[in-house]
C-alpha cells in the first residue's frame, strides 16, 4: 500500500511539474460496419451499443468543446456503423438525423447525411413512420424543400398505425410551405415523440428560438411605430421604457436582454444568449 501510495504521489508530482498528457484524438480505425458485424461473432447488438455510446460522447464532447474549430467528421461514420450493426436501433436514426443537420458549430451542418441515414432506416424498417416524419422535417426545416417534405409526410401517413396529423402535415407543406406556425407544430411533435432527453432538449431549444422570433416581430413593430412618429428608431430600450412604451428592458426566453440596432431598428438576440444564432426560418 505504501509503495502504491508512493507511485501515485510520483505521478501527481510529474503531472504537476510537466503537465498532464494531452487527451487522445478521436480516431475511427475500422469504418466498415459489415466487418465489425462479423468480427463481433453474434454480439453485434452489444457492439452497436458501444459505438452508440461513443457517438453520443463524440457529439457531446465536440459540442461542448471550447476549441475554436470543431470537427464533427466522425459523427456520420459512427452512426453508420451503429445502424449497420443493429439496423433496428431506432434512436440512432432519429438522433443522427437532427444532430447531423444542425448548423455549425452545433453540428456539422450536413442535412444530406441526415437524409442518407434516415433513408437507411426506412430501408431497414419501412413500417416505421417516424423515420418519414423525421425525413419530412429535415427537408422542411434544414433544406427548405417543401415538396420533398410533403412527400415524406405523405409516405409516413400511409404507413399503417401512423397518426392522423402526419397527413395534415403533408397537406400544410403542399399548401403553405414554410411558416412559423408550421415550424412550431413540427418541433412540438418532435419534442413529444422524441426518444431521448437530448432530442427533447434540442426541440425545446428550437421552440424557445421560435418564441424569441415572435417576440422580435412584436418588438420590431413597436420600434417601427416609434420611428414612424419620431422620424428615427429609438437609441436604446430605455428610451421606450421612459416613454412608457415598454415596462422594462425586453428579455428573450432565456432571460437575456434583446439587442436593438439603433441605426436600422432591427432587434436580435445577444451573442451570449443561449438562443444565438437564431435559425433561418423556412419560408423566410
Amino acid at each position, binding site marked *: 500500500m505504501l509503495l502504491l501510495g508512493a507511485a501515485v504521489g510520483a505521478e501527481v508530482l510529474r503531472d504537476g511539474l510537466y503537465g498532464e498528457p494531452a487527451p487522445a484524438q478521436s480516431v475511427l480505425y475500422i469504418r466498415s460496419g459489415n466487418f465489425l458485424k*462479423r468480427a463481433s*461473432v*453474434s*454480439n*453485434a*447488438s*452489444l457492439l*452497436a*451499443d458501444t459505438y*452508440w*455510446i461513443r457517438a*453520443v*460522447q463524440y457529439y457531446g464532447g465536440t459540442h461542448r468543446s471550447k476549441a475554436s474549430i470543431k470537427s464533427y467528421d466522425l459523427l456520420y461514420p459512427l452512426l453508420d456503423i451503429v445502424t449497420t450493426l*443493429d439496423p*433496428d*436501433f*431506432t*434512436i440512432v436514426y432519429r*438522433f443522427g438525423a437532427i444532430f447531423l443537420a444542425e448548423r455549425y458549430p452545433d453540428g456539422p451542418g450536413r442535412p444530406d447525411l441526415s437524409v442518407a441515414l434516415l433513408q437507411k432506416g426506412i430501408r431497414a424498417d419501412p413500417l416505421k413512420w417516424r423515420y418519414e416524419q423525421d425525413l419530412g422535417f429535415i427537408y422542411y426545416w434544414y433544406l427548405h424543400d417543401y415538396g420533398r417534405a410533403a412527400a415524406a409526410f405523405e409516405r409516413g401517413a400511409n404507413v399503417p398505425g401512423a397518426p392522423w396529423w402526419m397527413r395534415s402535415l403533408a397537406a400544410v407543406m403542399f399548401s403553405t410551405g414554410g411558416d412559423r406556425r408550421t415550424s412550431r407544430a413540427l418541433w412540438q411533435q418532435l419534442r413529444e415523440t422524441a*426518444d*431521448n*432527453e*437530448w*432530442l427533447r432538449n434540442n426541440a425545446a431549444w428550437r421552440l424557445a428560438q421560435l418564441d424569441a422570433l415572435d417576440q422580435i416581430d412584436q418588438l420590431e413593430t413597436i420600434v417601427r411605430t416609434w420611428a414612424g412618429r419620431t422620424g428615427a428608431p429609438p437609441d436604446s430600450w430605455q428610451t421606450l421604457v421612459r416613454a412608457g412604451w415598454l415596462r422594462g428592458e425586453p428579455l428573450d426566453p432565456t432571460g437575456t436582454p434583446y439587442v436593438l440596432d439603433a441605426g436600422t431598428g432591427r432587434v436580435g438576440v445577444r451573442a451570449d444568449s443561449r438562443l444565438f444564432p437564431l435559425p433561418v426560418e423556412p419560408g423566410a
Partner: protein
Amino acid sequence: MRVIGTIAISVFKESVRDKVLYNLVLFAVLLIGASYLLGQLTAGQDMKIIKDLGLSATSIFGLFIAVFIGIGLVWKEVERRSIYSVLSKPITRVQFILGKYAGLVLTLAVNLAVMTVALYAVLGAMMLLGPPSLVLVLDAPPLDPRLLLAVALIFVQLALVTALALFFSTFSSPILSAVFTFGLYVVGQFNADLKQFDQVVNSSAAAWLARGLYYVLPNLAPFDIKALVVHGRPVSTGYVLLTAGYGVVYVTFVLVAAMLVFARRDFK
C-alpha cells in the same frame, strides 16, 4: 440412470469447488455497474443496452465455461489416472461420458438461471428507480418474458458447444480441444456463407462440398435471437422449437461420436 446422475452431481460439485460460479459475481457487478454508468454515458436506451449486455454476457460467460471445463472433463481423469479407478467400478464408458456431460450442462443451467434472475432484477430495479422516459422509448417491455426465449436458445447452443468440447476431450489434449471447439464455434456462426458458395466459385464440385459442409457442421447462428427479442420483433414458437430440436439432435450425434471414440480408447 442413477450412475449418470451421481457422476453429474460430482462434476457440478467439482465446478463449484473450482469456483466456476464466481463468474456470477462478475456478471452481477458488470450489470449493476453498467446500469449506473449508462445513465451518465448514453442519451437514453439504457434498458436496451442492459438487455444486450445481459444476454451477450450470459452467452460469452457460458461459452468460456462450456469450453474451458468441457475440454478437461475426460482429459483430467486420464491425466490424473483416476479413470482407472472410475472404470474399475460398475460404470460403463457410456455412463461416464453421459454423466460428465450432464454435470457440465447442469453447471451451465444453474449459471444461466442465476444470470437470468440477475438480469430481470436489474431491469426491474431500473424500471422502478429510473425516470419514466426509460420505459417510454423501448421497443419491448422492460421485463419482457420473451427474454427467456433468447436465454433458452443460448442454453441449447451452449449445450451443443459443451458436447463438442467433450467430444474433442475424449481423444485430444486440452489446448487442441480448445482450438477445435472455438474453431467450430466461430465456423458455426458463419457457415450460412457456405450455402451460398456457388455464387463465389465457378466449380460445381467446390460448391457441392461447401453445401455439404453447411449441413454437416454445426449451424450456431440461428440460435442467436438476442437482437430480435430486445427489439420486440416477432420470433415464432415454431422457429424456437425447430432450432432447439436441431440442437438436441446435433448434441445427441456428437455425444454418440464421443462415446464411440471413448469406447475404443485403450487406457492400458
